[in-house]
């Protein structure tokens, strides 16, 4: 019964979305206030209906109602509660339902918190949101209904792919989707602005917080996925340039560019057309990601179902929105009034460079991701474009950008003095060089690139704080005065500083694991010892084990530093009851690096194949991502974006730029 309610609510939501797409748009066109205002209740009703539908599916999962086909195929009664819940989006139908649920959440948020928007803009934004909702709800109802019943109901379910039974992965999809779908708001604003024919500083100020929120979710979602790949897949790496990873990384690159270009629109009323284009592209790449992952074009743990009808449907949605968005752009963008021009050496110039580099990097990733698909379609030849390609393209494109980040942040608007900016950076440069030299002292036998790369990270890290230190007159006033100045700074300044510093931290982590990783594969018998990095690992024993929903084998390893025992780690081979085997990594995390042990099969001589890694400073990668996330959050809480603030200033800033 509850499943039917869910299904019914979903169909009702489709109707409401259709209403939300058509009526406010007409209202905005004819200037009818009531029709425009109807977008708000429509968005809220749609949210409630999809919530009911989502809750119904979750109820079916939690109560293990195997008469629902989706639950039967993807759940099992012995699964822990957390994975029953995450099982809701661990499959194609459920994940699409989550997608529209998050879309409705964003739509509802715009409806609730968008009081300060001009009524016609708000109506149009919500209408575009409604059109996206219509397309995806139609997709679910027509091809991916999660509420299909089975008769007679089976007694037990098939279980969730054991690789997905993991806490990081339980929350990876919701965050990632919040990022993908959050960019739909920027898209809707761009389309609404194109219809309106008006982009100004106020528009940029409204778009930025939504983009920032989406960017934060993407950042945390991608890093969770990478963390999962690191310790669950057992390959010892953290990023594999897998097409599915790229699919989430491309929107991140473009939304990062969008964040920066929207600042230029807000502060200087320039780069307007470009920013609108970026908003369209960012969401287009999100859609492309959804298509690549969900259509079954790519094979991976993410591609739940290979069904040509679904792939075709999503491709149609993709073409409709990307094609429609770009056509509208081509038609209306020339009407947007171009903003003022600026000197190449200025804050604006720096941000343009940032955009160019990020977009070029994204294009390189896009080509590397789509080229194999295109080639296979055209010639039937199968190729794989792997890490060597991305190392050769993405790396060199990003390098100058990373070098320029601290410089750009110090340039002043309109016309800047490059010499003065560089002069202010000498402390950061000296600190970076010093860090490099210290690294060189400790690791002079290793690859020369390591100290260089670490100095780059240090340059980014220290360079980020130069502007902040200046503003609070660090060391030039007593500490308490500096501190009170720090508290008085706009949060967006702190946010930017943290985000850039987090990038530096991440770079250091990436450099360390890329260049200093130690890999060791050998056969071991209980009692054997081997060195990996600065540690020694002893294979203690292997014992059978049983748990609620799997049986397996636990390999115990003892880790020594010198002669001193410092930890025990366990690597398991698990055999899940309904489906499949996994290997759990034995992981010891320390301040300076991870010892990573994977137990394999038996070898000819009766030992175990064991693979070990020493991954120095790898945790910095995720720590850096988290710092970036916090920086984004600080920036988002800036007073400028609070609901009340723009309202007061609306009269002065909300007027069109013409």
């Amino acid at each position, binding site marked *: 019964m509850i499943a039917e309610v869910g299904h019914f609510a979903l169909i009702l939501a489709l109707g409401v979305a259709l209403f939300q797409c058509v009526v406010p748009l007409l209202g905005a066109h004819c200037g009818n206030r009531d029709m425009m205002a109807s977008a708000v209740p429509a968005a809220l009703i749609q949210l409630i209906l999809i919530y009911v539908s989502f809750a119904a599916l979750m109820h079916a999962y939690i109560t293990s109602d195997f008469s629902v086909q989706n639950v039967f195929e993807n759940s099992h009664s012995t699964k822990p509660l957390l994975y029953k819940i995450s099982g809701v989006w661990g499959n194609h139908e459920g994940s699409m339902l989550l997608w529209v649920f998050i879309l409705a959440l964003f739509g509802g948020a715009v409806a609730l918190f968008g009081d300060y928007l001009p009524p016609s803009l708000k109506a149009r934004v919500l209408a575009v949101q409604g059109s996206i909702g219509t397309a995806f709800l139609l997709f679910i109802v027509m091809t991916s209904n999660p509420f299909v019943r089975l008769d007679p109901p089976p007694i037990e379910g098939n279980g969730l792919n054991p690789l997905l039974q993991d806490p990081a992965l339980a929350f990876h999809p919701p965050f990632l989707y919040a990022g993908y779908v959050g960019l739909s708001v920027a898209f809707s604003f761009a389309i609404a602005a194109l219809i309106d024919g008006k982009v100004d500083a106020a528009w940029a100020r409204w778009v930025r917080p939504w983009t920032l929120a989406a960017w934060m979710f993407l950042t945390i979602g991608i890093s969770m996925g990478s963390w999962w790949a690191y310790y669950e897949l057992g390959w010892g790496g953290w990023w594999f340039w897998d097409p599915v990873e790229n699919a989430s990384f491309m929107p991140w690159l473009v939304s990062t560019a969008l964040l920066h270009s929207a600042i230029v629109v807000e502060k200087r009323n320039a780069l307007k057309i470009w920013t609108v284009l970026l908003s369209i592209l960012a969401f287009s790449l999100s859609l492309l990601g959804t298509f690549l992952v969900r259509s079954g074009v790519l*094979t991976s743990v993410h591609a739940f179902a290979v069904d040509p009808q679904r792939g075709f449907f999503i491709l149609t949605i993709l073409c409709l929105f990307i094609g429609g968005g770009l056509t509208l752009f081509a038609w209306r963008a020339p009407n947007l009034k171009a903003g003022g021009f600026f000197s190449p050496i200025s804050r604006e110039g720096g941000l343009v460079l940032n955009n160019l580099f990020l977009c070029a990097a994204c294009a390189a990733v896009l080509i590397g991701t789509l080229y194999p698909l295109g080639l296979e379609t055209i010639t039937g030849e199968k*190729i794989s474009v792997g890490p060597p390609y991305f190392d050769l393209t993405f790396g060199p494109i990003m390098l100058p950008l990373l070098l320029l980040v601290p410089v750009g942040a110090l340039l002043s608007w309109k016309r800047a003095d490059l010499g003065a900016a560089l002069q202010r950076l000498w402390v950061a440069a000296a600190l970076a060089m010093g860090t490099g030299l210290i690294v060189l002292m400790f690791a002079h036998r290793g690859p020369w690139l390591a100290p260089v790369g670490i100095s780059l990270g240090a340059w980014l890290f220290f360079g980020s704080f130069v502007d902040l230190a200046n503003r609070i007159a660090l060391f030039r006033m007593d500490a308490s005065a500096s501190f009170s100045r720090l508290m008085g700074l706009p949060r967006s300044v702190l946010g930017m500083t943290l985000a850039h510093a987090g990038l530096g931290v991440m770079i250091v982590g990436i450099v360390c694991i890329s260049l200093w990783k130690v890999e060791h594969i050998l056969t071991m018998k209980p009692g054997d010892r081997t060195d990996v990095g600065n540690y020694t690992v002893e294979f203690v024993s292997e014992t059978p084990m049983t748990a609620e929903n799997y049986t397996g084998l636990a390999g115990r390893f003892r880790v020594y530093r010198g002669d001193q025992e410092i930890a025990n780690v366990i690597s398991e081979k698990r055999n899940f009851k309904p489906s499949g085997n996994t290997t759990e990594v034995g992981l010891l995390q320390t301040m300076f690096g991870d010892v990573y042990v994977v137990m394999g099969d038996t070898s000819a001589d009766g030992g175990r194949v064991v*693979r070990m890694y020493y991954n120095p400073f790898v945790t910095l990668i995720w720590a850096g991502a988290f710092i970036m996330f916090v920086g984004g959050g600080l920036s988002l809480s800036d007073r400028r974006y609070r609901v009340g603030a723009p309202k007061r200033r609306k009269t002065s800033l909300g007027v069109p730029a013409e």
Partner: protein
Amino acid sequence: MTRKQKRLAVILGGLAMLGVAAGLVLYALRDTIVFFYTPSEVVQKNVQPGTRMRLGGLVEKGSVTKADGAKVNFIITDMTKTMNVSYTGQLPDLFREGQGVVAEGSMDASGTFVADTVLAKHDEKYMPKDVADRLKAQGVWKGSAP
């Protein structure tokens, strides 16, 4: 510089950068791509020893032998031609005799394929369509098991 010249400088700078990026992409695409072949295609296309490639097919039943240390030998077949593969390291969880496998590496002078990566996928996506169809017709292919 006049306004116009400045604008030109910015645009030219941008184009130059995109040019460099495009050059990098083309260069990388030429040198880093790895082709996917089945054993028959290796013979057909006369792939030279030392060329990096991905070799796909089924692990022949009864062909897996474990040598010293972590070394494993097995045979990849597409039911027409076979190829000896040697690999040092851990086989993936899904590696089974009679199942689909993709090995990445290159052939040595004796014609043995020395793999440095082995991926096991229970999916015909990792198999050229005609091979998958042929395997299905012969009743060897089990379909894409979960």
